[in-house]
């Protein structure tokens, strides 16, 4: 596992998401990238049914097809838990309502958001072009680039930037905030998940804002 940067790639007006994905795919293939299957990162959100007096918590449960045996849970406080995928059964138990009484947590219906698409390899890099959708509505494009041989962002950022700018242009000028804050530390899969969550939260916020009456 190396260092990962996730960027929101803007979809220009008059173009569909699929067109942008296709042209980027062609560009990558010209660079010599080989398609190695598909990937998927998804996020479900739960809210606590706490008794009065305690703050309501939201809990995001995410999966990454790159780590298929794990699931990642992030609380609104920022605490991140990496657990076996069975943790989800525990969550299902907590959301279950018994004899008419609500569970401890409830799932936010229609709030599932995911990014999926093709996965490419080009020597030491793994590149993923994800189309983000929520309740089967297209929301945008997230591009993930991983440099596998290094785990410390400061050591490989310049190399990564050069690589990313070759097909993404100015989008990849500065490192994502999470990568920046961990420049001299070991980068972990939980950091990747937090980058995705940040983007997902922005997409969701944009949805809520656009739905409001003008």
């Amino acid at each position, binding site marked *: 596992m190396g260092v990962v940067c996730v960027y929101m790639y803007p979809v220009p007006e008059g173009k569909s998401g699929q067109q942008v994905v296709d042209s980027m795919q062609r560009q990558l293939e010209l660079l010599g990238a080989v398609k190695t299957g598909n990937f998927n990162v998804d996020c479900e959100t739960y809210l*606590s049914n706490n008794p009065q007096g305690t703050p309501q918590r939201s809990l995001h449960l995410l999966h990454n097809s790159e780590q298929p045996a794990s699931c990642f849970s992030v*609380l609104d406080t920022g605490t991140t838990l990496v657990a*076996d995928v069975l943790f989800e059964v*525990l969550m299902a138990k907590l959301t279950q309502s018994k004899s008419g009484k609500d569970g401890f947590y409830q799932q936010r219906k229609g709030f599932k958001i995911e990014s999926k698409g093709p996965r490419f390899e080009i020597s030491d890099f793994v590149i993923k072009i994800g189309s983000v959708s929520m309740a089967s509505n297209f929301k945008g494009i997230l591009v993930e680039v991983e440099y596998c041989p290094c785990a410390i962002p400061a050591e490989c950022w310049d190399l990564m930037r050069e690589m990313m700018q070759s097909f993404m242009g100015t989008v990849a000028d500065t490192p994502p905030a999470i990568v920046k804050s961990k420049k001299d530390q070991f980068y972990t899969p939980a950091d990747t998940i937090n980058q995705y969550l940040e983007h997902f939260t922005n997409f969701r916020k944009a949805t809520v804002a656009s739905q409001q009456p003008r």
Partner: protein
Amino acid sequence: MDPSLHQALKTGIAPLHEYFLQGSILDASKEYLIHRLRGLCDHADSQPEQFNDHEMVFMLSGQQQAPFTVHLRHSLLAPECWHLRYVGVAEMGDKTRQTLVRTCLDVGVSETIIKFLNEMGFRMEYEFVARGIFFHKGIMKVTVTKMFKMNQVNDTKSLEPVSASHLVEVSVVASTSQEQIGEDMKNFAEQLKPLVLLEKVDHRKLQPVTSQTNT
């Protein structure tokens, strides 16, 4: 996704069951039992494996809901290992069933788990240290455990034994409806007699006794 896991997510019912028998042995006789187990179990020629775990029990309670309990184990020998466990109520079943059965869910977790549980609304109920050795025989797990009280919260150094005996447990985690396992476990338990009697211990009957000793 694995279909049994998918089913478990839909119903919220753990996909695995633990079949187990419990008993105890006085500290003075422990060595005889260990010798016997080393002979009976796999890898008789190597030293039995030791464990030294700090177990914390967390509870989530609400106004309407029945409290929800999880057990968190932290190995003191390998401090990077954290293990979260949910177990259901032990079912006695009828006479045809040879062992106690409970649903169980074992989840490996990262070291942020204590903070995570607290922020989720869980509160720590009690904690203890369990020290001992474990053996394998096929898919059966045999543990001989000494339980220790902790004199101070979160201090795993100052310990006091709970009793003058060791807890002996034989358990198998498997999917449901594998009654054959019960037979195998019963046969194994027979071979440990008369050193230790491994039985289906009715946990409901134990409760009043412990509450009396507490008062």
